[in-house]
C-alpha cells in the first residue's frame, strides 16, 4: 500500500510540506519582482527631472510594486511558513483539509500570474494598490489595466479564504492530545487570528472589486457620482478589508518571532498569555480603525474622534508584545546568530514604524502628512520591519528543518548588515522627505524643491538593501546544495517540529505525540515543568495513514480521520477558475459559461461522499465481504 501522500503526478500532492515550500518559492519570486520594480522606481527618483520612466510607466510600476509586495508576497510567504510548520507545531499529520490546502496554493499562483500577465499587453494596473475611484473608473482609465487587477484580486481572494478556513479548522481540531489552547505556539495564534479576520474581510474587498468591474464593464453606477453613486463607498469597502489585512500580514510574522526568539534566548517566552491575548486584541481593535486612512475625505467630527482614538489605542497590545520580546532577551542568554539579529532588529524597526503610525493616528498630524513620503516611510518600516525581517530570520531558523541543512552564518552576517543598513539608509531619511512636503505617487520632482539629496540617499539605501537580499539568495542556494547537515534539532529548541527528522517524513511524526506543556522538548531542562509530554510515544494510527481529531479547547482525542490521497481536483478547479477569469476579462461569455459548468462538475466530484473518508455507507458488495 502506497503512502497517502505519494503523488501520481507532481501537481496532485496534498502534502502540507510540499505545498508550503511551493508557497515560499512563489511568494519569494513575487518579492523579487516587486523589488526589481522598486529599484527601477528608485533610479527614476534618484535625481530631479529624470526621464527614465514616463508618468504612465511610473504609475504601472509603483502600482505593481505595491500589489506584488502586499498581496502576492507578504501574506502568501506567511501562508508558506504556516502551511509548512502548522501540522509540525501541532503534532499533527496534516492540515484539516489537505485538498483545500493545495487549492489555495494553485489559485494563489494563478491569481499572481493573471495580474502579472497585464505586463504582456503593456497595461498593468496603474492606480496604486488601493485603486481609488474615480481614477479607476473607465472614463479615466479605459484600458484593461484595472480589469486585470479587479478580476485578479477576486481570484486571489478565493485562495486566501479557503486557506483561512483551513487554518481555523486545523487549529481547533488537529492538535496533538494535550495541546490545550493555552499551550499552542504563538505562530498558531498569529495565523489563526489573521485567518479569522480574512474569512470576514476578504469578501468585502472581493465585492468592492466586483462592483468596480461592473461599473467599468456594464455601466452600473456604484461609484459614479454623476449617476447617484458613492465614490467614498470604494474607500470604505477597501479599508474595511485593508486595515485588518495589514494586521493579517504582520501577526503571523510576529508569531514566528515569539516562537523562535525564545529558542535563541534559551528560555521560554516571557508573558505567553499576554502575547497571545495581545495578538487577538490587535486584530479585534484592527477591525475598528479603517477610516484613519480617510481622515482627509471630510468625515464628520465624531467619526474622526472615534477612529483616531481606536488607532491610538491599538498601540497598547503592540507595546505589550514588544515588552515581552525585550524581557525575553533581557532575562535570557541570547545566541547571537543571524536569525537572532533579524528578530532583535525587527523589534527596533517595529518600534520606529509603530511610532510613525501612532503619529499619523492623530487627525491634525495626519492632515499634514497625508499623501506625503512620511506615510511611505511608515508603511515600509512596518512592512519590511515586521514582515520581511522576521521572514528572513525565519528562513535562517526553519530552513534547516525544511532542507536538513544549516545556512552559512558568515554569509548570514553579510546578509543581515546589508539589509539592516540599507533599510534604514533608505527609509529613515524618507520621513524627512515627507515632512519637507514631497507628495507620494509623483514620477519626478523639480530641482529646486530641496529633496535631491534625500532622494539620492534613499536610492543608495534601496540598492544596499537589494544587495543584502542577493546575499540571502546565494546563501539559500549554497545551503540547499552543500550546507552542513542540521540534524533533527540544531537549535536545541523546545517545540514539536524539532521532535521529528529534518526534513520530516511525509507522515511528519511516526506516532502522534502527547503534549503536557508549552515546550515539550524542554521539560527535562525547565525546573518548574514536570516531565510529562511524550513526543516519541503514542498512537501509530495505521502506520501514518490516519490523523487524529481532538477537542477544541483541551485537545482531548475525539476521532480518527483517514488521510486524503493525492488528488487532481485542486489543480483542475484552478484551471477552470483561470479559464473563467480570462474569459471574463476578454468578454468570452460562452467560454465563461463552459468553464463555470466545468468548475461545478469538479466541485461535485470533490464533495462526492466516499466510503474511504467514512462520509457514506460502504457499497453493499464491500460490506458483504468486509
Amino acid at each position, binding site marked *: 500500500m502506497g503512502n497517502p501522500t505519494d503523488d501520481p503526478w507532481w501537481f496532485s500532492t496534498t502534502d502540507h510540506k510540499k505545498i508550503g515550500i511551493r508557497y515560499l518559492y512563489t511568494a519569494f519570486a513575487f518579492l523579487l519582482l516587486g523589488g526589481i520594480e522598486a529599484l527601477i522606481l528608485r533610479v527614476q527618483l534618484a535625481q530631479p527631472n529624470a526621464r527614465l520612466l514616463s508618468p504612465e510607466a511610473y504609475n504601472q510600476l509603483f502600482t505593481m510594486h505595491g500589489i506584488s509586495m502586499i498581496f502576492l508576497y507578504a501574506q502568501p510567504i506567511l501562508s508558506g511558513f504556516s502551511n509548512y510548520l502548522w501540522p509540525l507545531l501541532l503534532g499533527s499529520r496534516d492540515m*484539516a*483539509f489537505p485538498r*483545500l490546502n493545495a487549492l489555495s496554493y494553485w489559485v494563489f499562483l494563478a491569481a499572481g500570474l493573471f495580474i502579472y500577465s497585464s505586463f504582456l499587453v503593456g497595461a498593468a494596473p496603474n492606480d496604486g494598490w488601493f485603486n481609488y475611484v474615480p481614477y479607476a473608473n473607465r472614463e479615466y482609465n479605459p484600458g484593461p489595466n484595472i480589469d486585470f487587477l479587479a478580476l485578479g484580486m477576486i481570484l486571489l481572494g478565493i485562495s486566501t*479564504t479557503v486557506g*483561512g*478556513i*483551513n487554518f*481555523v*479548522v486545523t487549529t*481547533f*481540531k488537529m492538535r496533538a*492530545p494535550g495541546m490545550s489552547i493555552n499551550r499552542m505556539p504563538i505562530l498558531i495564534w498569529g495565523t489563526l487570528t489573521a485567518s479569522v479576520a480574512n*474569512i*470576514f*474581510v*476578504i*469578501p*468585502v474587498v*472581493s*465585492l468592492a472589486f466586483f*462592483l468596480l468591474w*461592473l*461599473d467599468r464593464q*456594464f*455601466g*452600473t*453606477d*456604484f461609484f459614479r457620482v454623476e*449617476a*447617484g*453613486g*458613492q465614490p467614498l*463607498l470604494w474607500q*470604505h*469597502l477597501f479599508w*474595511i478589508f485593508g486595515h485588518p489585512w495589514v494586521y493579517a500580514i504582520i501577526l503571523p510574522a510576529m508569531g514566528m518571532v515569539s516562537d523562535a526568539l525564545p529558542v535563541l534566548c534559551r528560555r521560554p517566552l516571557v508573558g505567553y498569555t499576554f502575547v497571545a491575548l495581545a495578538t487577538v486584541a490587535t486584530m479585534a481593535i484592527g477591525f475598528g480603525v479603517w477610516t484613519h486612512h480617510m481622515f482627509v475625505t471630510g468625515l464628520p467630527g465624531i467619526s474622526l474622534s472615534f477612529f483616531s482614538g481606536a488607532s491610538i489605542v491599538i498601540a497598547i497590545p503592540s507595546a505589550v508584545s514588544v515588552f515581552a520580546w525585550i524581557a525575553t532577551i533581557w532575562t535570557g542568554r541570547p545566541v547571537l546568530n543571524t536569525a537572532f539579529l533579524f528578530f532583535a532588529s525587527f523589534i527596533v524597526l517595529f518600534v520606529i514604524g509603530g511610532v510613525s503610525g501612532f503619529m499619523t493616528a492623530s487627525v491634525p498630524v495626519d492632515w499634514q502628512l497625508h499623501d506625503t513620503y512620511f506615510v511611505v516611510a511608515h508603511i515600509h518600516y512596518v512592512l519590511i520591519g515586521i514582515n520581511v525581517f522576521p521572514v528572513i530570520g525565519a528562513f535562517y531558523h526553519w530552513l534547516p528543518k525544511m532542507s536538513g541543512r544549516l545556512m552559512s552564518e558568515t554569509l548570514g552576517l553579510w546578509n543581515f548588515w546589508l539589509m539592516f543598513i540599507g533599510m534604514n539608509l533608505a527609509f529613515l531619511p524618507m520621513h524627512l522627505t515627507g515632512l519637507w512636503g514631497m507628495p507620494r505617487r509623483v514620477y519626478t520632482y523639480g530641482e529646486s524643491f530641496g529633496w535631491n539629496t534625500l532622494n539620492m540617499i534613499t536610492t543608495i539605501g534601496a540598492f544596499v538593501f537589494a544587495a543584502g537580499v542577493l546575499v540571502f539568495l546565494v546563501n539559500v542556494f549554497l545551503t540547499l546544495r552543500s550546507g552542513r547537515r542540521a540534524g533533527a534539532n540544531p537549535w536545541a529548541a523546545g517545540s514539536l517540529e524539532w521532535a521529528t527528522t529534518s526534513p520530516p517524513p511525509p507522515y511528519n511524526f511516526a506516532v502522534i505525540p*502527547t503534549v503536557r506543556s508549552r515546550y515539550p522538548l524542554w521539560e527535562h531542562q525547565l525546573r518548574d515543568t514536570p516531565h510529562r509530554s511524550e513526543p516519541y510515544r*503514542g*498512537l501509530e*494510527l*495505521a502506520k501514518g495513514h*490516519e490523523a*487524529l*481529531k481532538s477537542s477544541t479547547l483541551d485537545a482531548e*482525542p475525539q*476521532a*480518527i*480521520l*483517514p488521510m486524503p490521497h493525492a488528488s487532481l481536483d485542486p489543480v483542475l478547479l484552478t484551471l477552470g477558475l483561470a479559464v473563467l477569469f480570462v474569459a471574463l476579462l476578454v468578454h468570452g461569455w460562452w467560454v465563461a459559461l463552459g468553464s463555470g459548468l466545468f468548475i*461545478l462538475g469538479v466541485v*461535485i466530484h470533490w*464533495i*462526492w*461522499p466516499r466510503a474511504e*473518508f*467514512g*462520509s*457514506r*455507507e460502504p457499497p*453493499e458488495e464491500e460490506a458483504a465481504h468486509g
Partner: protein
Amino acid sequence: MAEQASPGGLHPLPVGNISPHSMGLLGFWGLVATEAALFGALLFAYFYSAFGAGRAWPPEGLPTLALSGPNTAILAASSITLWLGERAMKRRGSRRGLALGTAASLALGILFLAIQIKEWADKGYGIDDHAYAAHFYTITGFHVAHVVFGLILLAAMLIWTLRNYFSKARHEPVVMVSLYWHFVDVVWLFVFASLYLSPYLLR
C-alpha cells in the same frame, strides 16, 4: 480501519467523518461565515448609498411586496421540508423521508427562482439605469446565484439518498447541504428586509 484505543486506553475512538466529528461540516461553517460577510458587505454598500441618496431612494417609488412576500414564504417553507427530511434520516434512518423532504425543497426552490426571474422581468429599469438599480440587481443576483448552487447541492443530495449512501449513523453530507440551504434562506430574510421592507421605514 478498526477502532483504536485512546491514549488512556479507556474508550475506543470512532473512525471517519461521523457526526458530530465531521471535518467537512466545519469547512461548510467556514464557507457560510465568509458568505455571510459577503452579504453583510452587500447590504452595507446598499445602506451607505441609500443614506447618501436621501429621499430619492428607491427612485421608482416603494417596492411592491406582491411577488416578493409570497416568495419569501415559499423559500421559508423549503427550509422546513428539508428539516423534516433530515429529521426523518436522523431519527429513523428513513431514506424515503429524506428523499421526499429533499425533493420538496428542490421543487420549492425552483419555484422561488422562477418567481424571482418574473420579479426581475417586471421591473421597469435595467442594472445600468441608476445606482439603486445597480444595488438591487446585484444583491438579488448574488442571492439567486446562491439559490442555484444550493439547488445543485440539493439535487446531488437527492441522488446520494436514492443511491442509499446514508444511514442513521452516517449522513454527514446531508447535514452539510442542509446547513448551506438554511443559510441561503436566512440570508434572503435579511435581503428581503433590506430591499423590500426598509424603504417603508426610511421614507
